[in-house]
């Protein structure tokens, strides 16, 4: 969809046009549902979080000034998911002061051999903390500064957690392949 059209839709949404809201919903809901499911890994919760998120989007669209509509909606959805996890006491964020050589890259050859499903399942093997931070940092590409602000954690904790998560994921994927043979 073209930028002009999106701008029109945003304008109409600001005026409270119901059809425009529906277009916006249909444009973004498949992606947002996948995003919420990635955080909450439960369809029912993901749907609830998405609806809450869209209500927040419509409520706050008056103040929307950014260029990147998708990024803005992503952020709102992430916040909604985090709020939901906090309510359900699923994440217990703690500082992790253990040392890890977090600058090393972890690589895997021929990533084509893993399907989307494999990758999604691999993500579910992480602990809720690791999953949340990995999701925010790697998949949704938030900066470490932003994450440490949102989650109220030190940057070193985030770095270590991501590194540990990466090792776990690699081990899972390699094990998966061994099991297949």
């Amino acid at each position, binding site marked *: 969809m073209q930028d002009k059209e999106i701008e029109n839709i945003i304008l109409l949404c600001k005026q409270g046009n*119901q059809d425009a809201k529906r277009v916006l919903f249909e444009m973004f809901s498949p*992606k947002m549902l996948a995003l919420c499911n990635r955080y909450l890994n439960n369809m029912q919760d993901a749907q609830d979080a*998405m609806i809450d998120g869209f*209500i927040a989007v419509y*409520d706050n669209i008056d103040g929307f000034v950014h260029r990147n509509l998708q990024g803005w909606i992503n952020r709102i959805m992430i916040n909604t998911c985090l709020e939901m996890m906090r*309510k359900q006491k699923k994440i217990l964020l703690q500082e992790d002061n253990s040392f890890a050589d977090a600058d090393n890259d*972890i690589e895997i050859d021929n*990533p084509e051999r893993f399907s989307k499903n494999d990758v*999604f399942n691999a993500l579910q093997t992480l602990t809720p903390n690791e999953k949340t931070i990995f999701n925010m940092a790697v998949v949704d590409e938030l900066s470490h500064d932003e994450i440490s602000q949102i989650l109220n954690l030190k940057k070193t904790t985030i770095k270590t957690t991501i590194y540990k998560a990466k090792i776990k994921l690699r081990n899972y*994927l390699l094990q998966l392949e061994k099991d297949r043979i």
Partner: protein
Amino acid sequence: MKIEDIFKNNLQNSEMPVDSSLWNELNNRISSKNGGNNSANSQSGNISTNGGKGLFNKIASAVKGMKAATIVSVASVVVASTIAAVVILNNENEKTNTDKNKIITHTDKLVLNTNELITHTDNTASDNNLQQSVKNNSTPTSNVMPSVDFDIDTANTNMSSSSQNIVSAPEMIATQTPNSVVLNTNTMPTNPNVTNPTEQHNSQRTNSKYEIKILIPNVITPNGDGINDCFAIQHIEDYRDNMLVIYNRNNKVVYQKRNYNNEFCPQNLENGTYFYNLVIRNQGFEKTFQGVITIIE
């Protein structure tokens, strides 16, 4: 290829089919909202320009309404497991003033009930989706489970002190994993390490037996006044199979002891920072504690 790229490529823009009923639900929520608080909307618009931090407050109120609906749907899942838990708790309470025979029958009941609980989780494990929904929807269950474990533990220690017949009861509980439950109750005292490492790892999170409950001080004042003179680790007597090493700041070993039982009361050590390394082995499960002690005369 970097592992983060794999995940980014696969998951970043993935999509999921959205049921059309969701829009109706959303639509209802919007229209019911617009009836009441238009002024709130314009306020929240300002908040978002300031960086979206105030969003949480806004969302919190929205979530509240939603919560009620989800709880109803979740309730049925929760009820089954909470009932099982309540039964155990009741048994635990009854037990306090009963004679030996009764206690023994109660242990049978307890073990039976924990079996039920475990098979309950085991069944759900076979169905991935269900497991997820149970795990995630029902925080009450996850809250109840550890406390149940704890009650069983205390119950068993009480019983073992009151009657010799069931001394091995804690071991039965300790080794209860979905596959080995029946086997272990029959061949109780033989070997508590039957569980394989992966199972141990899994049960480490849920079973409090694998949580080593000790309290390690970080300051000692060996000046002979009788207060904090020794490096006294609380409840270390429950874990006799341990090894303690204490280093000074130059990584030189100043104290080393197997089966440490709070004997370290240094008389001629300098004030300052020391490091300890405590390995505890408990029924085949090993854990290392590391930390800092400050010695102040």
